């Protein structure tokens, strides 16, 4: 566990002021606009901000108290992926990766070994190259691997995949998610892509002007706080479901989300396994009658619990399906045509569902 209660001023124009406890196990996503203090926060934890005031406590050990550094930063057992790769130019990739092996044993449970890191990040063809021979994305992957291999207590990642292409990003986030499940240390992951965080985070902190605007469990936050998290176009509900059975002919998996079920692409999980799903609000349409003869497989029914007008003449409709809520974004015009009100029963046509991850 990592407890922070810190304050830092950067010459009049910026003040970081926050308290938070980061739990071990699972990733805490840190989200916020450019200049909101995300990197500064990580620097404070890493001991790189000399003017820091406040306390940083990791696993009951004071790293920093008031203005005093109590644990030197090289003794903190950190892994830090900086926003710039900061590879050592005099070492080749392999030596960069193994830089910390000379003094850190890295035997903390669940940590990956070098073979796993090289394999999952696809670094094997690069090992003997020197950093100036790498492309931007390749550098970033090496920097990520280097940090993972040095971590003992806390993992800090500052936009670790911003220069990586989409496909690698998907693969790497999936791996990082699994890793975070088996490696019980605090993980802090900065990103300005909310979908990246949806895929891997357990908790979320939304920062703005050096302060925590919102913080909490990702699932609950995602249903409340669209205005902070994403442009209206990207709003969506996070759902938790359980694998019920598989239809191998059509490559589909049936999930139970409480009282009703959803069909999604075949998932590689056993029956009974819990999964996390995202249903984008713009992909959910409402209907008063049960639609027939449509290519849409997933039709749920529920009750409208909230109608929230959004900017631009559209409405975000929250529909309760049993315990969970689904969001639908429709136009003002549709709302009027269908005369929707709270408490009204409706059918939901769910056009797309994204599997985010196996849940905890």
């Amino acid at each position, binding site marked *: 566990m990592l407890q922070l209660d810190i304050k830092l001023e950067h010459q009049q124009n910026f003040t970081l002021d926050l308290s938070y406890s980061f739990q071990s196990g699972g990733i805490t996503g840190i989200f916020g606009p450019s200049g909101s203090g995300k990197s500064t926060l990580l620097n404070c934890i890493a001991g790189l901000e000399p003017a820091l005031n406040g306390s940083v406590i990791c696993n009951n050990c004071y790293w920093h108290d008031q203005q005093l550094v109590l644990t030197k930063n*090289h003794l*903190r057992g*950190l892994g830090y992926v900086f926003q710039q790769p*900061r590879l050592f130019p*005099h070492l080749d990739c392999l030596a960069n990766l193994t830089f*910390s092996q000379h*003094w850190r044993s890295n035997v903390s449970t669940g940590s990956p070994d070098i073979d796993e890191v090289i394999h999952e990040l696809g670094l094997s063809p690069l090992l003997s190259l020197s950093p100036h021979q790498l492309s931007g994305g390749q550098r970033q992957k090496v920097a990520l691997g*280097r*940090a993972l291999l*040095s971590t003992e207590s806390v993992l800090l990642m500052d936009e670790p995949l911003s220069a990586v292409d989409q496909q690698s990003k998907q693969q790497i986030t999936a791996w990082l998610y699994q890793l975070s499940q088996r490696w019980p240390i605090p993980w802090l992951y900065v990103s300005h892509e909310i979908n990246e965080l949806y895929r891997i985070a357990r908790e979320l902190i939304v920062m703005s002007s050096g302060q925590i605007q919102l913080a909490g469990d990702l699932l609950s936050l995602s249903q409340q706080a669209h205005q902070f998290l994403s442009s209206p176009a990207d709003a969506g509900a996070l759902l938790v479901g359980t694998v019920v059975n598989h239809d191998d002919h059509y490559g589909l998996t049936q999930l139970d989300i409480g009282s009703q079920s959803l069909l999604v692409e075949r998932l590689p999980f056993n029956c009974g396994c819990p999964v996390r799903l995202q249903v984008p609000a713009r992909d959910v349409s409402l209907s008063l009658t049960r639609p027939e003869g449509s290519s849409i497989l997933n039709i749920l029914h529920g009750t409208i619990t909230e109608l929230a007008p959004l900017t631009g003449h559209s409405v975000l409709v929250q529909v309760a399906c049993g315990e969970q809520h689904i969001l639908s974004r429709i136009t003002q015009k549709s709302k009027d045509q269908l005369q929707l009100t709270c408490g009204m029963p409706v059918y939901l046509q769910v056009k797309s569902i994204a599997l985010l991850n196996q849940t905890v």
Partner: protein
Amino acid sequence: MFSATDIAAITITLKLACITTLLLMLLAPPIAWWLSHTQSKVRSFVEALVAMPLILPPTVLGFYLLLLFSPNSPVGSAWLQLTGSTLAFNFSGLVIGSIFYSLPFAVQPLQSGFHQVDHGLIQAATTLGASPWNVFTRVIFPLTKRSFIIAATLCFAHTIGEFGVVLMLGGNIPGKTQVISIALFDHVESLNYIQAHSLAAVLVLFSLTVLWLVYGLQGKKRQKKFSSVS
């Protein structure tokens, strides 16, 4: 071609230059590191102090060191008590004098090398668990190897060419404290130009070759390797 005393002078000079360079390469890095990173108020004063030996003419520096090393002074007599021999007119005195004299040449290039190491890399190394010593040996030293080589060659060359300090402190005793520069000057003074020219030629050719090799080898590994990455 060379007399026995010339050969002795060459040996003594090389020994002096090697030992001085070695000691300076141990002594100067901590000073240079401190100077390049401290925020202390006395920094610029210490910096000026380190540069002082440059300003005092070597013969004058030698004169004051001679006064300091004399058995009449506390330092000189303490040394005499401890070791049984005087500092002046002995090889150890020459070493100390040369260290004083070449200190700026060791400190300055190192300091400016250290200063230019990207601070981000040092931060990266410490978060990766490198202790200050490890940061030095595994990051700073490899990145500033060039400055170390420059510092070492400057010290070496400067000690070989040293004249005033050694003349004052060493006393031109053949086989004991007579170094090349003094032997050479002796030849010039005694109007033995032939011997002077040949000694000078050997000195120049030898030094040129050594420097050429050092710079040449170093250049091989150089290129634009370290550029535009961060």
